[in-house]
């Protein structure tokens, strides 16, 4: 902007959010993600099931998942689900309150918030989800 001016971004009073579950795949650096309106343990289990389908397609023997300690990662429902999937899945939890160890946080999440979410009014939730999916598909998967 010119000196002394400031850009204005108009928005509605409400700020409804959408949630995205993101996993980085090693060593291919691709991204698997699932977008949902809520973030309960049922949504997280849905995301894990989609990863299971991906593994069956590519015939991968074992999948090691490294997660942080969000409430829906540690809840009773998800623990029960993981115990039944032990033949292909092992879970490692990061230490508490250490987002610097999580590469999703630094590599994907930061740029996504900066480029897509900040300083723009999408109007409806559909437009926002479309923009997020377009952005994440550009990066990988």
């Amino acid at each position, binding site marked *: *902007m010119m000196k002394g001016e400031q850009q204005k971004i108009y928005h509605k009073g409400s700020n409804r959010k959408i949630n995205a579950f993101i996993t980085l795949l090693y060593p291919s650096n691709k991204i698997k993600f699932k977008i949902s309106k809520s973030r309960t343990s049922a949504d997280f289990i849905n995301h894990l099931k989609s990863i299971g389908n991906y593994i069956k397609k590519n015939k991968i023997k074992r999948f090691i998942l490294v997660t942080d300690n969000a409430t829906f990662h540690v809840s009773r429902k998800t623990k029960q689900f993981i115990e039944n999937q032990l033949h292909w899945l092992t879970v490692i939890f990061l230490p508490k309150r250490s987002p610097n160890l999580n590469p999703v946080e630094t590599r994907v999440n930061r740029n996504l918030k900066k480029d897509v979410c*900040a300083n723009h009014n999408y109007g409806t939730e559909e437009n926002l989800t479309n923009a997020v999916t377009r952005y994440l598909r550009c990066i990988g998967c």
Partner: protein
Amino acid sequence: MKVEHLELSKLKKAELYDFMKGTRDKEEYRRASAIKQKLEGLPYRTIATNLDVNYRNVYNWIQEYKEHGLDGIRSKRKNAGRIPKISSDKNKEKVKEIISKSPRTFGYLKNTWSIRLLATYITTILGMNVSPMQTWRIVHDLGIVSKRPKLALEHAEDYTKKKKIVDNYKKVSAALLKKNSPGIRRRDLAKPSAIHNQYIHDERRATEDIS
């Protein structure tokens, strides 16, 4: 030997000293310093030896200063140096047009321009390698500054109207809920200007009493 003296007013002296501070050109500075030495009362030949020039040059500079003022001293060189390819006037106008639009119109998934993003886009247009530092210079010459955009409500007027009504209602309800309260006078709620007028009236009366 008769020595010619140069005398100036205070304003013109201050103007000359400011000119000496501000110039980046060494020739302009040399001419101005010759005039400054002349003001102190030195003859032409000693000034010439101080500045390593012929005394006729010193004479000519001072004559031109007497006729035209500071414009006589300024260097008359134009069109010197290489003509810029990237930061020419044509390209600067292009950059100004680009910045006025959002980067989404050009296919980038970003909401605000950054210098690096602008540099990558300009290289595709011009077909020349443009560094981020070069783009910063162009943007800086145009007088464009990066500033964080501000959020604003779409229908702000409706929002403020409704908020006034709600705040008024809260005041009344709080007063009514208190038992044995004197209550709020209607004047306070409806017209805030009434209180202000009362204040002015009291003040005016106080001043009249003193006089």
